[in-house]
């Protein structure tokens, strides 16, 4: 049995430490090792985007990221969006636009959208499409998702002012 590696990092603003199995990917590490179930497994090969998390504000596919590479980084998952009972404008917008059906792709979608809006709170429709191009949704259809992100961008702009 190979040795486990201790990994310390920041998860959604909280200092966190856990042991990673040798060769373990960040997705399994977050779910199994840390217990944050918001990133989802859809393919394990970097093609579906369900596992999207933010590492130092950049979207990454957790399933093809080594757990050890999270060391000393700032990781954010969909769990960072809400604060107790109150939801992020992005989450509210997804609700209003019916932008989730089964909800399995949603955490990944939200994180991809979040990264975009933090970088560019005034995106054009094409830029939104580009930002979620790596996220597969099999149920909802992409139009409501794009609408929801564009709508949320308005609140992001307002709160930025």
């Amino acid at each position: 049995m190979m040795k486990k590696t201790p990994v310390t990092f920041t998860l959604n603003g909280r200092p966190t430490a856990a042991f990673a199995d040798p060769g373990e990917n960040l997705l399994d590490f977050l779910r199994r090792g840390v217990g944050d179930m918001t990133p989802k497994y859809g393919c394990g090969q970097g093609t579906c985007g369900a596992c999207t998390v933010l590492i130092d504000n950049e979207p990454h596919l957790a399933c093809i990221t080594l757990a050890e590479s999270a060391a000393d980084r700032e990781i954010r998952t969909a769990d960072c969006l809400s604060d107790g009972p109150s939801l992020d404008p992005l989450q509210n917008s997804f609700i209003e636009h019916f932008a989730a059906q089964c909800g399995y792709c949603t955490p990944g979608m939200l994180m991809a959208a979040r990264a975009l809006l933090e970088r560019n709170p005034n995106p054009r429709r094409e830029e939104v499409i580009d930002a979620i191009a790596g996220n597969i949704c099999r149920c909802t259809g992409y139009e409501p998702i794009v609408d929801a992100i564009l709508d949320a961008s308005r609140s992001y702009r307002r709160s930025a002012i």
Partner: protein
Amino acid sequence: MTVEFRKDIFANERNDDFDQIGHARIRQDIEGHVRGRSPFYDDHQFEGLLHVRCVRSPHHHARIRAINASAAEAMPDVVRLIWPGDIPKNMNTLLSLIDFGRDDEPLLAERKVSYVGEPVLAIVATSVLAAQKAVESVVVDWEVLPHVLDVEEALKPNAPVVNDEYPNNCFDYHDRYDHQKLRFGDVKEAFSQADHIVEAEYQMSPIEQAPVETCGAIAAPETNGRIVCYTSTQALFFSIGVTGKLLELPSSRLHFIGGTVGGGFGGKVDSQHEPFAVLGAMLTGRPVKYMWDRAEEMQYGAPRSGERWRIRDGAMRDGRIIARSFTGFFDAGAYTRLTSYGVQKCTGHLPGPYTIPNVASNIFCVYTNRTPSTAMRGFGITGVDFAIECQMDRVAEAVGMDPIELRILNAYRDGDMKAHRRPAKNCALIECCQVAAQKSEWRLSPAAISRSSIEGGGEGWRAEIPETVVDGEGGIGNRKRQWQDTEPLSGTGIRRRVPVGTSTDHPATGNAPQHEDMVAEVARLGFKIDAGHSVQRPSLSEPSEGLRHRHANAETSFGRALGAGPSLPSGYDRTRPPASPGPARSSPPANEPIPAHSRHERDKSEKPFQRGVKRPGVSPFISGTRRR
């Protein structure tokens, strides 16, 4: 426009004020979705969770000579191997829960595999990686068998037998019919009167449901003798039923939790995971997860069946379609799953949403050495709709008519008689066509614009429905003359087959007459009808007494053989009658047909109704007579 609703169902739980239509409503589960907290099965954590991976067939069709798993067994991270013998009842068919079809699919193949990826051994290990390594270490000695991947090839007499339970490579409807049939009016007559005949072939590929969440289940022993199972299933009670049946457990011991499905689209009804997880948990006493990775989901998850269609339309110069016939082949893959039911749905859907007074269809549910196929978003309906709508465009071209106007002319209207002899109600195709034309700025004639679904239905030419050609019992089925038992798998004998749509010259059944269209289909498919075996069409109205009695004899001998005949090899003890009449054959008095009620009585008393299998009864099948 008033719409009529079924009032007999949930009448007092519903008001018809429609005040919700046009208003956005918030899904009740969406807050969990946007918080990432909706409880998908894989979100449940268990200490000491074990993982399952299966050893799978790399061949389309092969016999399993031997499996050497000693290397896997010796691996420290391997906790348990699950062999076919560990499964209490290793044979099932999904729809046996509703008494439809015979058990034909093992959870783990024991003697042979019939598609690439069929599991033969399951390995429970402490991690997915360890399970995969163990799988790779297993050596299977395969004897590769010839395979068949095409539906029509599979129906040929010398095709390899894919599924031992259905040696003709097609599902047996009601244990007697090798296909599903629809007859309405007289297509043959109508084709001879049509101005245009339009024929075409269509083919649809299998479609994988590809949910973003892959299929899986986690099971763990509870402290009260029950097993808890979190599952991705779309059909929780199917999953409980299947698991209970395969593992011979009462459902009271199965605590199944589902309801949060990461996309299903039909692909999560097959209940392939729960039995492994539950059995693994029982055998190891630990929580066990069986989850497909993406590659397994795409390769081994059952897709919607491929379909092949031949459609023949008879149309008049003015655009009326007066006859439509279908020959369809659904590719069930190696085992039944839900495609047999898809064929039934499909038959109920024909001839599409059009008023056609003469309709005939023969649809086969065919076994091939492909991944078994199952439910997928309107399976049985959407595939043939594609074919039908392409066909409509071809008819429009042939008669020189606008394709939308052709649809408006032929569309069901309220009061038209459908091919299933129910009047059409609440029709709206004409209005849909009109709106579609308007939105796409497609110009329609004033006549087409003024048509309405609620006017003219069941009137004039729309009411003229010819008598339907039926057999002597008033049925339209092509009865199986007999069962041809195949050699059990261990034997070396050549399997005999009943060519589809033909009958063989057999002492118990004689020459069964066939409807001409079936004979033509048989000839077209290239089946050989034995030399010297004449397939004749009987004269229109006189029932053939001799034939009737030969059948009566045959049934008597079936009855005897079931009770006292030679026993079938174990593992093959179906209630299917043997191929040849038993030696103790006794004939009823030559000229006395067995009254229907006494047949019924005997059926009841003789008990071979295990697993929903009905014994073939007497079938004085006379085709070509007309019902008055």
